């Protein structure tokens, strides 16, 4: 019995690990959306983060630089988005799509020379505790520092958004840019900052995939996680804590289908692989059905262009 319990612990640990990229990317996007910016480039920023992190790891042999570089590359890509949507007042949806297409192409171009190179071992913390404590050990210990960061991040985000002046400004800009602007807040600057923060988090999410989760570079390795992260923000009705819950549910589905594949059930592998995507649609339908509830929480100016006459 104790063996089974430990196995469940390991399973929960695996679910947590697979939810990390979703938590990071969705938390970053949530901040951007709260400021009124809809950035559909999450998938592109994530994959650029993944290749930059991996490439820097191979070239510099330094994991710190690799992680930092991945965040920086996500940030640079989001800067393009910021320049276009905030300074040149382009449509958010179209610009975000362009960012994803560009990011996927660019990552494959950079990654050409990094296919098939094995990854480096990323340091995991408290490995001895993981082994020695049954059940709870594999849940709480033996993870990378990024995982711990990801699990603190939603609470931190929640605190900043709800309890600090910074959070108030972000929400004000998202809900009513005109009034915020009249109060002397530089709307464009706030939105730029939120976009860049979101980009950095998406980059980090990518680095988690290529450095820790899969430790190698595979073309298109994000496999739609960026889009699922975007769906998570809607699912969470723009609340950071619900992002965490949603990410764990999706992590659970991912791990569950992998285990079902391994057990060799008489269900086609492809159907199981499609499960996370189908679940996303079902969850979106359930959440969005009540339009009042969605409208109550949606940042009022989401995806709208703000222009101040100078």
């Amino acid at each position, binding site marked *: 019995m104790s063996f089974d319990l430990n196995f469940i612990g390991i399973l929960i640990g695996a679910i947590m690990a697979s939810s990390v990229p979703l938590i990071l990317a969705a938390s970053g996007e949530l901040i951007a959306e709260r400021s009124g910016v809809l950035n559909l480039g999450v998938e592109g920023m994530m994959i650029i983060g993944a290749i930059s992190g991996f490439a820097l790891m191979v070239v510099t042999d330094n994991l710190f630089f690799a992680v930092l570089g991945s965040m920086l590359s996500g940030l640079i890509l989001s800067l393009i988005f910021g*320049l276009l949507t905030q300074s040149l007042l382009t*449509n958010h949806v179209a*610009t975000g799509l362009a960012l994803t297409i*560009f990011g996927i192409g660019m990552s494959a171009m950079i990654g*050409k020379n990094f296919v098939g190179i094995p990854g480096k071992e990323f340091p995991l913390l408290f490995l001895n505790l993981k082994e020695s404590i049954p059940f709870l050990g594999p849940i709480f210990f033996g993870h990378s520092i990024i995982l711990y960061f990801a699990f603190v991040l939603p609470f931190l985000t929640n605190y900043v958004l709800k309890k600090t002046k910074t959070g108030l400004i972000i929400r004000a800009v998202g809900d009513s840019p005109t009034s915020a602007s009249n109060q002397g807040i530089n709307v464009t600057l706030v939105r730029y900052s939120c976009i860049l923060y979101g980009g950095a988090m998406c980059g980090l999410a990518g680095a988690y995939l290529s450095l820790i989760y899969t430790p190698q570079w595979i073309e298109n390795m994000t496999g739609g996680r960026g*889009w699922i992260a975007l*769906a998570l923000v809607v699912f969470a009705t723009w609340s950071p804590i619900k992002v965490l819950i949603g990410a764990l549910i999706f992590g659970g589905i991912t791990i569950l289908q992998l285990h079902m594949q391994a057990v060799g059930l008489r269900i086609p592998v492809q159907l199981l692989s499609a499960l996370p995507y189908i679940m996303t649609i079902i969850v979106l339908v359930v959440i969005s059905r009540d339009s009042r509830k969605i409208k109550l929480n949606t940042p009022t100016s989401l995806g709208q262009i703000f222009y101040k006459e100078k």
Partner: protein
Amino acid sequence: MEVQLIKIEKRNDVSRSIYFLTPVLAIFLTLFGGGIIFYILGFNPIEALKFFFITPISDLYGLSELLVKATPLCLIAIGLSFCFKSNNWNIGAEGQLIFGGIVGGGVALLFYNHDGFYVLPIIILSGAIGGMLFAMIPAILKTYFNTNEILVSLMLVYVAKLLLDYLVVGPWSNPEGFNFPETRQFSESARMPILFGGLRIHAGIFITLITVFLSWLILYKTYLGFQIKVSGLSLKTAKYAGYKGKTMIIIVFMISGACAGLAGVGEITGPIGQLHRNISPDYGFTAIIVAFLGRLNPVGIIFASLIVALTYLGAETAQIFLQVPKYTGQVFQGMILFFLLGSDYLLFFKIKFLGLKKNEL
């Protein structure tokens, strides 16, 4: 005293000439940006751009290939223009293409070893219906459950890809195919007629051209087209005028899905001739760029599809001659859209170079 050299003013009306000139500007900026990327990669930028944009279409075969690639791109983009004009963000055309291909391909396998003039039309029609039905999923969820169509249509792309994978590996795989993930080759009666011997250009181009004409007719000459345009410009006005918003959303998605499905069936009965895992090199996504580059205008989209098709060919040529990955094409496609959206700034704002007058100094 502060002297302002540049003044930015909001335009009161959008200049029509600039409206169609900015795409050209965007293309030039993309060439420039591409040159810089090639330079960074260590190539002679002029040479590299020549391999990318001139070499592929310098012979008859290349020109035919250009049309082969532009055929599905134009078709999908035309369909998307209905959605985008009315502010419906269908970005899952790739999934609708694949599903259309699956349905059309299934019918083609059903008619295996069947001769008759009716076989191909039935396949084409079923492909269009397949794409249409698949596009109705996000449309119905949007209208009746208030679900975000961007996310649903995109998630369905992955579902369609996995379904195709399941079919070609499992139940539909070629019984004499040594377990390769592909179906039988379709019989001759299920293939698009080839227009010229030795070239791959096929009758699908006529489907595209007819669709372009029909969509021009619908968009500019019918009440439905008028409703679509008004809803795109102002949802409030559309509601005030009493247009049935829900029905219209479903209709534009159906048109768009049918076009993508036609493109899918055109590919499998045209150049491919069977079903396998990769029936589309992301035509459905690239068509989004084509639609924007063509200004959601049927004629504009024809030109845009040719230009974007060239990025596919260019990437293939560059892969051979410069050993750069074929994804370079996607980088160019992303850049075109960036520059196009960015240069739209010129549409809405006037930049005045004031210069320094002598007496001001």
